[in-house]
């Protein structure tokens, strides 16, 4: 009886562990599955969040692009308005004080230029004739000395 009990004792102690081990894969699987499901869900949420974020960014950038393109076109319109013929004429006359020519002088470029006409002397300034400069005595003295090396 005692021997049987002794033989059974380890067995008795091993049964819960085996049972536990026997149950462990199920629990582990459940935890694993739960983890996978949770992880998948979290990933999906993250992905959806990323997609939403990216979607808003795309939308915002598209709006920005459209806005910039529109502003470029508005600037082109402004440039065109600034270069309008009437405005240029108005600026030339009003601001710059320009006037339309009343006569046109045309110079034929296919003929030989006329001889140069001498300008009367009364219109030319008198030229003062300056003689050679008088060198001082010490300059001659310095030149007569031997050069210094």
């Amino acid at each position: 009886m005692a021997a049987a009990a002794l033989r059974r004792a380890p067995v008795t102690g091993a049964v819960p562990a085996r049972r536990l081990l026997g149950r462990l894969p199920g629990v582990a699987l459940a935890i694993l599955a739960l983890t996978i499901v949770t992880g998948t869900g979290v990933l999906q949420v993250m992905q959806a969040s990323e997609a939403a974020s990216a979607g808003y960014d795309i939308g915002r950038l598209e709006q920005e692009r459209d806005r910039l393109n529109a502003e470029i076109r508005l600037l082109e319109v402004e440039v065109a308005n600034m270069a309008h013929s009437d405005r240029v004429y108005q600026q030339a006359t009003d601001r710059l004080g320009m006037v339309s020519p009343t006569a046109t002088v045309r110079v034929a470029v296919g003929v030989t230029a006329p001889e140069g006409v001498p300008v009367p002397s009364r219109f030319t300034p008198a030229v003062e004739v300056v003689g050679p400069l008088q060198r001082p005595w010490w300059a001659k003295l310095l030149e007569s000395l031997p050069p210094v090396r």
Partner: protein
Amino acid sequence: MSEQRPHHLTWRHAVLLAGMAASLVAVIVRLWQVQVVDHQSYVDQAARTRDGVAATSAPRGTITDATGYPLAMSRDTWDVYLDTFLWRDRDKARDAAFKLSQILGVDAAQTFALGTAQSRGDIPLLRQIPYETGRQLVDEELWGVRLLPSAERMYPEGTLASPLVGYTGLGGEGLWGLESDYDQVLRGRSGMVMTERDPLGRPIAIAPRVERSAEIGGNIELTIDRHIQRIVEQRLDEALRENNAPSGSVLVMNPRTGALLAVASRPAPTSYDKILDHPKLSTLVRARPITDLYEPGSVIKTLTTATAIDLGLVTPTTTYIDTGRVDIPGTEYTIRNWDFQKYGQVTMIEYLQRSLNTGSVWLSSKVGARDFYRYMGAFGLGEPTHVGLSGEGEGMIRTPDNDDWYPVDLATNSYGQGLAVTPLQVLTAVSSLANNGVLMRPYVVSRIAANGEVRTFQPVRVRQAVSADTARTVFRMMYEVVEGVPTHGARVPGYHVAGKTGTTLVSIPTGYDLDTTIASFVGFIPYEDPQVGILVKIDQPSGGLNLGGQVAAPAFAKMAGDIMQYLRVPAGRTPSQVSAR
């Protein structure tokens, strides 16, 4: 001891079960109705509430002149709509209407009434509001106020070249001119984004999205030079005022290439304000030099002379006896000179200088009908020039092949009466004489850039109408017509001009109106190296002068001088150098 309940179903159970079964059946039937029978209806309702289609703008392309300046372009604007479904919330609608009144200056009460008059769909409040104002509204995010991008067509040079450039309607479609002819090129394709939207109408980023990107309209570059166009229009207006004429046309062409540098037509729109309501809109928007037919008159004498010279029948020094009148054999018709004078023995140069009808009749009799009409065909008269614009006149010339042709037609056609052509046909034909006899196809569009492709249009040589020698000879005679007459109205100080006047009576259903004329002039400048050919046509001048040399030639001289200055063409050389040509 309590009484034990029976194990069998009582009538109460049966009633309860029947009630539950009936309810279940009712639910199933209702589900069937909702999910199957009325499925599409509810899907549509849901889509209307949830799905949003936002248009992305595709601006219309630009029409530029030869210098790259835009003659027609689009400016971004917004269209404002009220979402009546959302405006069922009256408090928020009232706030939005008040805000709209502050920003747009509209009446708040009227706006509120408009937006709450119905409870479904979008109602347009304002169209084409300025871009910055629209951006302000977008940033405000007003309840039930939706903005869609749109565009406003604008013409920076105003109505310059209006009949040629054209105009667009509110929907952006071309109505006339190049805007209409090249509508498919200029018109972009609006993009579309279909997605679910939140209650404020903003797209939900994670919702399914169907998108078609917008395609911006193509750009068109013209051969027209806006500065030359302006010179021509101003000078044409002056000529019409001075001669009290109701209408007129001017064409400026590069005779070497056929490129049109200016196309002016009067009357034309002076403003685009309510232009579509103008009672005589059709008279304003025609590019008359291209669409309208007229009898060109003595300008055709250059072509008659070229025909005779090309056939070797005459030379510039050939003479004939001008008796002042020609009786057409077999008919009762007598043709006289325009001044009813006779000049005796005259050379071909003198005949052109004096523009003698008898000389043309004499030449046409030597040429013969078959060859005359063959050459007129070679010059492109009676056939469209294929300039690439809609409504181009084809012209009307009777030939011996037509039943209604009579021998007198040959005589009258030889000096430009009894046939109908467009100013464009005339200038194209006479330009061949300034281009060594080569007839070029006129064109007004030089470049189209659309859908990532660029098409460039090069000058097109149609045919050799007459030999180069003949063309040079006749062109020299045209030089003598202007420069050989010291008082000729077409002379331009500093330059040499070759040209020919034309004066015709106005054709009416019963014959000709003897009191009015069409005065015209075709000239080329400078003679030594023609940069431009100009046709001036003044209709029905009534200011006391009515001949081409009196009315059209002076207008030509003014605009030709201005154009030479603008193009910086050096002043002409001496006549001895000219004769070497």
